């Protein structure tokens, strides 16, 4: 087996602010890695850099495509990057509004990804979309509804259906449960856990929620001030934290 994504020596500065300092990461197929740390620690910057949305000042990122070819992510042409985003990569943002279009129906939001991936048969697209709505626990009868009228949790589940329907190999998630009620969060996390396991997805999950990381991730990277201060197996990092900052992070949650 070869890694899906390999990054080394990533560096990113905004003026005098260091967003990333010598960050390295290897992600294997079907592996879920959580990136945790306080806000401003560089988590989202790392996700943007790894997905080619932002060029690092230094460092190397290699993505191995489904056809076995190696892509130099920061050097991707816009066309290739768009193709990867349509087919092999998925994104789940904290705010569903960043991914959904509220001028079209719930079903169209999900079906668009299939059409972009080359599906043409309207009936079959509609059928697949209905199945995915059910899978994310949205009543398929609401396929023609306007997602603007959905609750926050439903919008988030719709976003998940939209990004997973094309069965990406690599999913970038940025605080997927942020901004939701605690009870809604738990259900969503569990839904994500089930889908990730069923589909064998590789996931890079940015979160400040230690309990979410415990539930979903195989490995954890702890970031602070743009650096990775600790990383390892999820239970190792959470049960036997070494770095003072990780100890603080873990001690501030009760029995995660």
């Amino acid at each position, binding site marked *: 087996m070869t890694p899906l994504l390999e990054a080394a020596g990533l560096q990113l500065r905004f003026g005098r602010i260091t967003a990333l300092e010598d960050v390295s990461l290897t992600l*294997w197929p079907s592996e879920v890695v959580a990136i945790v740390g306080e806000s401003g620690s560089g988590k989202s910057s790392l996700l943007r850099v790894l997905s080619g949305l932002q060029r690092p000042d230094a460092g190397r990122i290699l993505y191995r495509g489904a056809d076995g070819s190696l892509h130099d992510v920061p050097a991707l042409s816009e066309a290739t990057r768009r193709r990867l985003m349509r087919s092999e990569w998925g994104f789940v943002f904290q705010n569903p509004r960043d991914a959904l279009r509220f001028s079209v129906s719930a079903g169209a939001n999900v079906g668009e990804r299939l059409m972009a991936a080359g599906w043409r048969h309207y009936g079959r697209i509609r059928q697949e979309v209905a199945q995915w709505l059910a899978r994310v626990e949205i009543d398929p009868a609401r396929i023609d509804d306007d997602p603007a009228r959905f609750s926050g949790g439903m919008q988030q589940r719709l976003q998940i259906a939209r990004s997973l329907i094309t069965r990406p190999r690599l999913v970038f998630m940025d605080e997927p449960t942020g901004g939701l009620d605690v009870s809604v969060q*738990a*259900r969503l*996390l*569990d839904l994500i*856990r089930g889908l990730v396991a069923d589909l064998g997805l590789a996931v890079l999950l940015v979160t400040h929620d230690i309990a979410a990381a415990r*539930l979903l991730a*195989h*490995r954890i990277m702890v970031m602070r001030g743009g650096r990775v201060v600790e*990383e*390892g*197996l999820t*239970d*190792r990092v959470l*049960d*036997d934290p*070494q*770095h*003072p900052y990780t*100890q*603080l992070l873990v*001690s501030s949650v009760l029995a995660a």
Partner: protein
Amino acid sequence: MQEVLRIEGLAKTFTLHLQGGARIVALDGVSLSVAAGECVALAGPSGAGKSTLMRCVWGSYGAGAGRILLRHAGGEIDLARADARSLREIRRTAIGYVSQFLRVIPRVPALEIVAEPMIAAGMAAEEARERARALLLRLNLPEALHALPPATFSGGEQQRVNLARGFGPPRRLLLLDEPTASLDPANAEVVVGLIEEAKRAGVAILGIFHDQAVRDRVADRLFELHPVRERA
């Protein structure tokens, strides 16, 4: 019998950075080995480091010094130095760990929690579910509970789910941290039976048993740990 696990000079110190850098020496150069089909019971007072030793083998604690050698895939792997990926592979295929408490996964039914590691280890899903059902029934967990997530189960019921999960897949090494702690005598008896069967199948077992009667029946050997402070 063939050696499955050999621990050499295992040391573990916790540094509590939030407590002014206080250092707790939990293990200080422990050496021990467990053979196939053998059950070694860790003994010693509370705080002696029994659970810590077990967690170092499981990998949820990092060893400070020493080697934790597991016979694996025709060779040997040092778990004290293995990376996260190898540890996951070892957990999937070779080592089982039954801790005292079940970490409940929301909304996942008991039967699936038990079947999951068997499926991960390569068993067909149907066969895994059938074995999960049989194990749960053997541990006197009524069928009506199998389809429910264990979040609302009693402590003893959760412990039995945990045991079924641990004894489900074929293992080379089983780590049992007080597996009968919250069980009634009848269920403790079932666990004794499961341990005896595993031993006959050649599984190496490292256990912590507070129930002396259970320990005397299953353990071939005691390994005494002493709190490090007293030893010093």
